[in-house]
């Protein structure tokens, strides 16, 4: 290129080469800069002040620099992802053997909330605490971020190469390969495992369950010739008898059972019938708390109780009795037998025991009662518990004998949660290849060579067969967060089959399930519909099962041998809490902080001890202050705090499984004690009761259990709990109601007739909640749902001890007391076997709200739709509103719970990954402000908006609060009281009447509906329905 020869001058000065120009030419600023007003070099005072002023301003501005927050717009917007518009995907929650059809709400590609899938004929849109909380586990920072080899990161290629090589070597030498897993509900995963076994013929798939139902399957094999767990239908049962089965809480399929059960507990003036529920159990379970008649028995009495029921029914049915069954002293037993028989075909007996012998008799009883085909369906067995306790023991023996050379732990943690944990740990040293697919460094994956971490269920494609003929699809709602791989894909990979699991799944559906339907001949259409619905159902089996009475006779003999109740000594009953369950989700702080439905304790397990027993030991529990004891059974012993539990059967103690994790993560580690070592064996099955050899020694150490409620009884306050019994309700639908009257001007009037208030006009909507205390089981699904929906912080054990938990909706649990009604001191003590009442309590959205008047800055106000609103931005935190709230539902941000290392257990607000679960529609509250239930105002607004866009009114049910939508018992109904077609209007039988001032007033004609604390006339928008127990007489003992 030709060089440019032209010269340009900056100005005439350069051309003329003026001295002044030459002098300044080389300087950065040749021009005069007004910094040095004096000219060269010498700064004067003014300059100094100027520079200092600038310096200070600059330094302080630099110090105030806002943190960089990246908000990157989509360059190419993904189809269907619109900022601030949520998407919903049908999927399936899977955790061990538990599987629930769900709908996942995603925002900007992040799953943030789990809802139940209403299309599922099993759970009908219900969820539970564990399902609701599982979305937080997705964003757990302690999940493994990629494959591991001997504790160090590796890549998938290396892992696959080495694992395959070792597997081949072992297979060639004829060494056994064991795949150990919990129940696998996915048929396609099972197929993949099958391909693995085909490749390595020495491989075996061993299934165990932390809490096993092997006894039921085995019993069905003995009584009907087929090992399966049948499905139950409580909704058809008029008499329900449960022998220690916590079917509303943790047994087999609790959400489904709660749905069914609650249908039998709904009553109104036209339908004055409900099921009667007898419970015989040791620990006061959630199910027992809901029973009409509950009898405390020792675990060892389960044998005689079941035998007695068998013999009682056999006598009526003309079958021969079995030996044993002396249970004459068990209260309510003969009534239960008579009612079972009277309602045969519409009754149901279930037992929680995992002893096949007991379950054989249970089957016999139900067979004699002709319940098969009505309340029990053996043709649609459920697949939640397929574990085989005997196969697991055999495998562990083989491992210790050196026969098993390779162990693959497929999404399970048997070194923690199996009955064989110790033997398994010892035997592992003899295996040459140990692989785990666990998502974290848990107790088991710490002991293996290779970890091939699986996706979280929200990241994967899969399917589930919940019961025969009932399928549910899992679809990913987010791209895998880490370098994980779906476990069945790993199995296929190791089997030498390279295929994308999605393809594999589709192929399997095409060849196996597509053919089972005739709605469409186009596979894509079938697939799309199944994916949209989330569920696909074909009919169940059509076998005929005949009960083998010979099995009953031998079972009777076994029971008579094994269950000997001496009436002396302690017996231990292990149980699961409905929040923590088996402990698989122990690192989920939402679950740890969910207060137990019955004990109201968080962040702990403890020995539940009856009041009489505690008094004998000299242990008192006041405000959570208690003592620890040493619990010893055989060689296992733990130091565990005592929780005094009314209703605990005499001579028994209870301890929850799922605690004492050592390698769950920072949240779950060292919370409580591990109860798995106390599992015993009976007739080849794991049994969760210890009949003898239980000893408890006091340590004298003080301990505090963090309870969210420390006062147990309702002090006979009829303004809080209004209850009656069915026999009374049949006579009078006002049974149990209290109508407070206030004396004014010579007459008694309703409290609402005396008011300083002008009232509110609700011209558009008038939102309200109706809560049926009869169907609420206390399961706490609503509490966790609310936590997820409304970004409620976890505060940790210390702060729960300080009584500062943040839950917006809580379940108040009250025990009855048998003290005289005027003895206020004695009323504080619960009955030895109390009646239990659950009362969900949230902001009552009072129309005459006491909180609204007292706020000095008007931060809490009433909306034109009946909501009591909280303006966080305006709140200055005087807490006057909380003091003046008669329901004590307001929650204060005592500390900064987000971005605060002191609250690092509050995972959803303290790291970038955890924060992805936050609901962007709900503010994360600052320190020093008050908060409370908003009736999910964000959902109301978006529902109204959706309707407005379509130029229509919102339809009832279209807008629903998180609590109401989670409730598996449909105990919470949300709706517009101005909508004549809404469910709430129908439930309350609302009528509009003009009062004397000409104002339109809503009159509630439903006799069961009442306001808590009606006499102070705060006039809530939340109504409670009386608790009616199906009892003959009103008593204070269950």
């Amino acid at each position: 290129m030709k060089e440019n020869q032209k010269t340009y001058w900056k100005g005439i000065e350069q051309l003329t080469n003026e001295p002044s120009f030459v002098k300044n030419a080389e300087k950065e600023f040749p021009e005069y800069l007004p910094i040095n007003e004096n000219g060269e070099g010498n700064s004067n005072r003014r300059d100094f002040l100027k520079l200092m002023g600038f310096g200070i301003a600059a330094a302080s501005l630099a110090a105030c620099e806002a943190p960089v927050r990246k908000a990157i717009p989509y360059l190419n917007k993904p189809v269907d992802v619109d900022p601030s518009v949520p998407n919903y995907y049908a999927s399936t929650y899977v955790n061990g053997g538990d599987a629930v059809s769900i709908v996942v709400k995603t925002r900007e590609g992040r799953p943030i909330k789990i809802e139940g899938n209403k299309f599922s004929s099993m759970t009908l849109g219900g969820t539970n605490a564990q399902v609701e909380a599982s979305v937080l586990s997705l964003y757990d920072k302690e999940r493994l971020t990629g494959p591991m080899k001997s504790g160090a990161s590796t890549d998938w290629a290396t892992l696959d190469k080495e694992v395959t090589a070792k597997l081949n070597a072992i297979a060639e030498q004829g060494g056994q390969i064991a795949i150990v897993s919990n129940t696998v509900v996915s048929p396609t995963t099972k197929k993949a495992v099958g391909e693995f076994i085909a490749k390595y013929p020495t491989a075996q798939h061993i299934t165990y369950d932390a809490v096993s139902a092997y006894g039921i399957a085995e019993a069905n094999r003995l009584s009907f010739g087929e090992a399966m767990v049948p499905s139950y239908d409580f909704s058809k049962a008029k008499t329900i008898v449960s022998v220690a089965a916590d079917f509303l809480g943790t047994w087999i399929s609790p959400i489904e059972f709660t749905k069914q059960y609650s249908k039998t507990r709904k009553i109104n003036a036209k339908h004055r019938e409900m099921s009667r529920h007898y419970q015989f159990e040791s620990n006061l379970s959630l199910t027992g708390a809901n029973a009409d008649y509950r009898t405390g028995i020792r675990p060892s009495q389960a044998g005689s109780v079941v035998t007695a029921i068998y013999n009682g029914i056999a006598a009526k049915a003309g079958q021969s009795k079995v030996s044993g069954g002396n249970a004459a002293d068990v209260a309510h037993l003969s009534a239960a037998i008579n009612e079972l028989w009277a309602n045969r075909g519409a009754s149901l007996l279930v037992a929680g025991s995992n002893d096949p012998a007991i379950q054989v008799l249970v089957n016999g009883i139900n067979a004699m009662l002709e319940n098969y085909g009505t309340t029990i369906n053996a043709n649609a067995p459920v697949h939640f518990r397929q574990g085989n306790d005997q196969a697991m023991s055999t495998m562990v023996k083989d491992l210790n004998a050196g026969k098993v050379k390779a162990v693959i732990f497929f999404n399970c943690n048997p070194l923690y949660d199996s009955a064989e944990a110790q033997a398994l740990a010892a035997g592992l040293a003899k295996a040459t290849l140990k692989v785990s697919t666990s998502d974290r460094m848990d107790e088991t994956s710490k002991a293996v060579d290779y970890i091939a971490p699986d996706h979280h269920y929200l990241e994967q494609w899969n399917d589930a067969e919940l019961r025969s003929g009932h399928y549910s699809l899992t679809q990913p709602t987010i791209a895998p967060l880490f370098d994980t791989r779906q476990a069945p894909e790993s199995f296929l990979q190791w089997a030498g089959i390279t295929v994308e699991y999605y393809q594999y799944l589709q192929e399997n559906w095409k060849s196996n399930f597509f053919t089972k339907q005739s709605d469409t001949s186009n596979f894509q259409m079938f697939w799309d519909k199944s994916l949209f619905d989330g569920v696909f159902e074909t009919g169940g089996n059509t076998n005929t099962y005949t009960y083998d009475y010979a099995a009953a006779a031998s079972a009777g003999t076994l029971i008579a041998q094994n269950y000997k109740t001496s009436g002396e000594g302690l017996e231990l009953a292990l149980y699961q809490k409905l929040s923590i369950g088996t402990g698989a989700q122990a690192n989920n702080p939402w679950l740890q902080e969910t207060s137990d439905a019955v004990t109201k304790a968080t962040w702990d397990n403890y020995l539940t001890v009856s009041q009489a027993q505690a008094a004998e030991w000299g242990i008192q529990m006041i405000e959570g202050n208690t003592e620890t004891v040493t619990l010893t059974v055989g060689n296992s012993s733990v130091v565990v705090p005592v929780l005094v539990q009314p209703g605990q059967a005499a001579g028994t103690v209870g301890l929850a499984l799922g605690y004492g994790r050592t390698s769950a993560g920072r949240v779950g580690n060292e919370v409580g004690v591990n109860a798995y070592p106390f599992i015993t064996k009976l007739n080849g099955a794991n049994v969760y009761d210890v009949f003898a050899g239980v000893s408890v020694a006091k340590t004298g150490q003080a301990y505090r259990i963090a309870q969210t409620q420390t006062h147990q009884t309702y002090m006979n306050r009829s303004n809080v709990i209004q209850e009656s019994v069915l026999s009374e309700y049949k006579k009078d639908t006002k049974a149990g109601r209290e109508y407070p009257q206030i004396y004014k001007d010579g007459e008694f009037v309703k409290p609402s007739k005396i008011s300083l208030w002008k009232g509110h006009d609700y011209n558009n909507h008038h939102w309200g909640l109706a809560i049926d205390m009869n169907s609420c089981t206390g399961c706490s699904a609503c509490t966790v749902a609310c936590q997820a929906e409304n970004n409620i912080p976890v505060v940790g054990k210390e702060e729960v001890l300080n009584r500062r938990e943040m839950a917006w909706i809580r379940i108040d649990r009250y025990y009855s007391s048998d003290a005289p009604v005027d003895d206020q001191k004695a009323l504080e003590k619960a009955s030895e076997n109390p009646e239990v009442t659950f009362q969900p309590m949230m902001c009552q959205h009072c129309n005459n709200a006491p909180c609204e008047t007292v706020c000095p800055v008007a931060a809490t106000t009433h909306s034109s739709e009946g909501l009591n609103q909280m303006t966080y931005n305006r709140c200055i935190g005087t807490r006057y509103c909380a003091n003046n709230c008669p329901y004590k539902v307001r929650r204060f941000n005592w500390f900064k719970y987000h971005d605060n290392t002191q609250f690092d257990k509050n995972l959803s607000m303290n790291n970038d990954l955890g924060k992805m679960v936050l609901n962007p529609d709900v503010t994360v509250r600052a320190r020093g402000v008050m908060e409370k239930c908003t009736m999910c105002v964000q959902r109301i607004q978006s529902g109204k908006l959706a309707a407005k866009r379509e130029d229509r009114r919102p339809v009832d049910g279209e807008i629903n609060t998180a609590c109401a939508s989670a409730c598996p018992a449909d105990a919470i109904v949300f709706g517009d009281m101005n909508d004549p077609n809404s469910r709430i209007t129908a439930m309350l039988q609302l009528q509009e009447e003009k009062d004397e001032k000409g104002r339109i007033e809503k009159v509630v004609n439903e006799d069961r509906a009442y306001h808590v604390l009606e006499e102070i006339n705060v006039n809530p928008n939340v109504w409670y329905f009386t608790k009616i127990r199906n009892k003959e007489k009103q008593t204070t003992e269950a």
Partner: protein
Amino acid sequence: MQVTSSVRKPLITGGKTVHDVTEDICRQVEGKPSKSWLLAFGAAATAFVIGFVAVAYTLWEGIGMWGLNKTVGWAWDITNFVWWVGIGHAGTLISAVLLLFRQKWRMAINRAAEAMTIFAVICAAMFPVLHMGRPWLGAYWALPLPNTFGSLWVNFNSPLLWDVFAISTYFSVSLVFWYLGLVPDFATIRDRATGIRKTIYGALSLGWDGAARTWGRYESVSLILAGLATPLVLSVHTIVSFDFATSVIPGWHTTIFPPYFVAGAIFSGFAMVLTLMLVTRKVFKLEDYITIEHIELMNIVIIVTGSIVGIAYITEFFISWYSGVPAEQYAFFNRMQGPYWWAYWSMMTCNVISPQLFWSKKIRTNIAATFIISIVVNIGMWFERFVIIVTSLHRDYLPSSWAMFYPTLTDMGIYLFTFGLFFTAFLLFAKFFPVINMAEVKSIVKSSSEKKAA
């Protein structure tokens, strides 16, 4: 010219002359601080600094540093607030009400009582600010200031807002009244001082010239301010009691609260004045001005207000039974027999029983007994507020929410902070300001002074 009956006991003993008054009182201001003063000041300042750590913790970490919880949203904070406001009652009562009633015995004690009022109200005002979750906003959002947020305005229905007005009005009127009374005395000190002290006291005395017209104006303004302040004596604690009385909480929702709170406030205020004056007269050797007669008269006020408080307690208790409201009945049952029974019975003993001892002339003219009972009364009055606030809140309507309140070190630290603040301020006042109103006392030297023994 007023004539004082010869039956009346002299209000000044020791045959003091007008000059003696000036000398005795200016001596403290003009002399070097005494050892006992330095010691007391050191202790007060230490308490202030230690307490400030607790304040800083609260501001830095949040209200969670206190022992409050979901059920008990106020405890020591508002207890201390009401307690200090109550103490702040005596000053205005003595200077304004007694001025209107021409009670001359107030003259020796009104200056210190008013100072005490000012400092007590400052201590009290700490709590409404500190107890807020977000004081940096609340400190001005609680005021009806014009703003750019449209219709964003304070809630005139809220008793807390009434408190803001009541306390600030009371404080400003008390401050002006107190300062006005100081002006002639500052002028006296100015006239005796030299150098920088002359300049400072000169400025403080606002050009006082002692002319008859100035005195005339002074008297009228005093009277007007006394008239303005008198309703405030009743209004401040009435409004403070509305915080509770207008609520729906059993044990709070009580119409008896306004008179009961005012009586309690005067009761505790007088007790605090006694505590302080008994020490001051001893340390500053002012026994001739604050005489046994003064102490006895104040003890009589304590008997009267203590008995009113006692009747209020019993009335409240009777009404809770008579009302037939179970929640109300339980609240009182719980006060007496619940987990905080000890607080209730401490209150009853200290407030109802201990002042009755003053029916005995021997006790009410005994300095040691008066000093002890004056402290006991203030302990009792603290428990009264604690009982009302904490035992009502901790077990209200729903038994599921019943909880206990346990104070933390921070709670105690903040209480200590206000003590530090109060005594630091009071000691500075006692050193640099004339603790007795010289001008007024001089006016009664002629009529009410004990004749010098010949």
